[in-house]
């Protein structure tokens, strides 16, 4: 990818105050309805990404120094991977594409609802609406194309969510003392970067994210066949069987 033009979102959990202005701003811009959430006794609501929730703050409690409590707030959303598993596996031409800013966006009219993108995402991001069409964070490409900030970054009071030139964001974070950013090089660079003081695991993120081998196999070998159009349905069901991993991502389980 041409790094010069690529934009990204930089998330700094140390600066996040967990106000969830980002969640509301996302819903307001994307006109997503509020969902009924059941459990008022949990801070994290909605509990996970949903067709109506493109981003959310994850609340992680842990013991801190000297008997003190430590509370981490981590914004979760689509990572807009440079090497995007979802795009690799997608069989519907144009359903998933990359903007010139680097965001992975979707076209619901072209989505066939096979859900392979969900299975091939190392971060368990894509969700499907009532018509089984893919939905997720699209980095507010309809705003950024016009020179506006994504809704979440615009509303964030502390700069915990910043949007900008990817290279510049990395340089700024390094200046602020972060040696290596999460997503700096993983998967050919993520479009959602994280400034972590400690291991990604501390913040509930998987170490060394990778696209499942089966997806890579599909991309290299089987996808070209299906595009030819012969036995596409057979190929699809085969691929679904191969590609959907038997276990879900461990990061999702952590919040239960």
């Amino acid at each position, binding site marked *: 990818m041409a790094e010069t033009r690529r934009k990204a979102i930089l998330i700094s959990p140390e600066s996040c105050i967990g*106000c969830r202005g980002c969640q509301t701003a996302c819903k307001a811009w994307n006109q997503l*309805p509020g969902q009924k959430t059941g459990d008022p006794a949990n801070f994290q609501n909605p509990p996970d990404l949903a067709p109506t929730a493109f981003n959310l703050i994850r609340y992680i409690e842990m013991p801190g120094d000297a008997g003190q409590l430590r509370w981490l707030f981590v914004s979760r959303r689509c990572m807009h991977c440079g090497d995007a598993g979802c795009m690799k596996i997608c069989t519907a031409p144009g359903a998933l594409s990359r903007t010139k800013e680097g965001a992975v966006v979707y076209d619901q009219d072209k989505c066939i609802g096979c859900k392979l993108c969900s299975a091939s995402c190392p971060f368990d991001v894509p969700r499907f609406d009532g018509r089984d069409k893919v939905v997720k964070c699209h980095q507010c490409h309809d705003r950024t194309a016009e020179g506006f900030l994504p809704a979440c970054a615009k509303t964030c009071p502390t700069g915990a969510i910043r949007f900008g030139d990817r290279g510049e964001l990395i340089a700024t974070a390094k200046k*602020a003392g972060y040696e290596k950013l999460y997503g700096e090089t993983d998967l050919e660079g993520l479009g959602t970067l994280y400034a972590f003081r400690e291991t990604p695991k501390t913040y509930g993120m998987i170490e060394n994210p990778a696209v499942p081998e089966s997806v890579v196999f599909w991309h290299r070998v089987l996808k070209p066949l299906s595009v030819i159009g012969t036995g596409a349905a057979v190929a699809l069901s085969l691929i679904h069987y191969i590609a959907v991993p038997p276990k879900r991502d461990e990061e999702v389980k952590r919040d239960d």
Partner: protein
Amino acid sequence: MTNHWLDLKNAKVLLIEGSNCAENHSMSMKWIMKAKENGAVIIHVDPRFTRTSKVADIYACIRPGTDIAFLNAIINHILGNRLYDEAFVKLHTNALYLLRKDFRFDGGLFSGYVEADLKYDNASWGYQLDPRTRKPLKAQGLDDPDCVFSRLKDFYKRYTFKVGSDISGVPQETIRKIADTLVKNRPGTILYALGMTQHTTGVQNIRSFGILQMLLGNMGKPGTGINALRGEPNVQGSTDFALLFNVLPGYLAYPNHNEPTLKDWSKGSGTFRAKFMVNLLKAWFGDAAIAGNDFGYAWLPKKNGKKNYSIFRIFESALEGRMKMLYVMGQNPMVTNPNLGLVQEALGKLDTLVVADLFMTETAAFWEKPGTDPKSINTEVIFLPAASFLEKEGTITNSGRLVQWRYTMIPPTGESKSDLDMIDLIFRRVRDLYADSKAEKDQVFKRVVWNYPKRNAYEAVLMEINGTNLRTGEPIKGIAELQADGSTSSGCWIYAGVFKEGKNLSKRRNNKLDPSGLGMYQEFAWSWPGNMKILYNRASCDAQGRPFDKKNAVIWWDEAEKKWAGHDTPDVLNPAEGPDKPSGQRPFRMTGEGVARLIAAPYKDPDPNIADLFRDASSVPADGPIPEFYEPVESPTGNILHPKVAVNPCVKYPRIKSGQPVGTVKDYPYVLCTSSIAEHWCSGSMTRNISWQNEMVPESYVEISGQLAGKLGVSNGQRVRVWSARGEVVVPAMVTKRMRTLDVNGTEVFVVWMPYNWGFKGLSQAASTNLITIDAGDPNTWIQETKACLVNMAKAEGR
């Protein structure tokens, strides 16, 4: 705020106490995090580990209602170890002033206590005065036993770290660490909100902040001050314009029954403020207001000076059958008032209730509350649909006194109208109804100037607030232009100058010009008074007018130009009068003394021009000149300092015989603290009707520690019954590590917390927390003690 939002970034330490600013003033964090990035230390003192505590470097878990014990221990440490800013204290406070020899504090009471009235006669708290000039006598040094500083030191001696810790539950070493951090890092600022004020010692809590900051020299400079974080929808603006019963616009005292003439009023308020009263009367009564008729002062209704007209008394008067009609706008007391059972009963005693709001609120629908038989209520309720903030224009004043114009985005929906349109229509109708009356009492409707144009009505009101030079017809340029002879008008003297030279300065949006780099942005909107960003900024300079901190200078005396100059409007009476003039040495010019008051002595500054009147009087809290610790009205423990005077001796509670029971620790062993959350605002009448907000926090709950949950046999999410002497609610329990068990006076105290934002209307409905809170009030402000009361809890049956 003495300072302003952007200025928070200039602090090296931020003490956040009684505020959960990350959740309830999230935008403050923009500047707080900038300070943190620059190495500032954040201290958070709160009964609960909140989203604010998450970003704090030091967190102290405190028992609700014990802030004075905690702060006094810090102050005592500073006094006892000479850690104060001696130059600042000597120059800019009353430290050297001599107090009367009969001033005493003994057994929890200051001298002059009148038990029958629950009041103080505060004469003995005053200064020794020069018999000729009536000015206070001053000591040579801080060690004079009669000077304010010595008496202060004596008073604070009782507050050791151990005493502070035993009462507050904050470990001694944490108090010491916080004290040392405040001393070592200057400039330092303090942020607070309702967590400090909603107590029966609310005013004294803030006085503690004042004393602490004066001792540290943290006032008038960038990154210092005492900063009240006020409610977003114009709480600052509405208090500026007489939201409270005891003030007129610009904090002029509301006239009492025993002040029939303007001169009588001036005897209580001083000649300095009398000038602004004349300007207010000219703004309201126009040509009808002349010197010969006291500028129409007599036409103002007078209140009974002995009575309390606070929100509590509104409902209690209704209950007593002495209030017939209530008009509620911008408020939802059926959710936000404490002891809600009493409020509902009171509303049912009214003949007529008018509610103007965006949604059918719990107040408007009080007769629909579950369990109520509407047939038993005879109150006629009139609901007026109100326009939202997006559907009207006008100014909003933020906590930093910044007055900003907001524009109409969309026209009002349906039949809704803006508040101004509603009031305008009602006033004109009432005036028409009195048009033929010959009775003198009704003439006021004809005399008052009320002809706002249909178009730009809001700007016409702001113009009236700014005022006019009646000789030239030009808008008033600033406070200094206002005259006491009726030749000028101003509807709110502190806003004089917002319409300078006919330009509405609240519309300015220059966000580039900040030559100081301190975040002053002098041409972005306009701050009262006189576009001043940092109040008391004269205190940032020494006696010669040189900044104490040259690097962060805000103002200074420019000897060459012979004027006060700088990056801010200098807080001096006359910018051309330098340090060699008396007015050049009054950094706290709104007090009679002209300096800050470590001990709040009653003092009236003689007016050199008018023999029998004084210029200005210093405000004295009703409940003492120095903050003393008293337990909340409902407390889990005795007062270890003075067991016989456990509670603030000026608090009268219960005020009425029925409906205000007080619980004891035997029946109600847990301390309840209440507040708001980021996701819902205040009574929730707006936010509980937004599904996005309800998704994040779907209903009310009670936050409890794991230990208490274990004791009650309750697990996370299970429903519990929470009840007090006044009522009960059933809500889910949120079991967290964020709530802790405190060690208070050697015993275990469990604190629980609930948000107060719910009621029985709207898209998200839940029991109102205020059914169980206490409606005891601070004797100065009558604010409710919703931060500390006693409750009991049990697992809810069959749920």
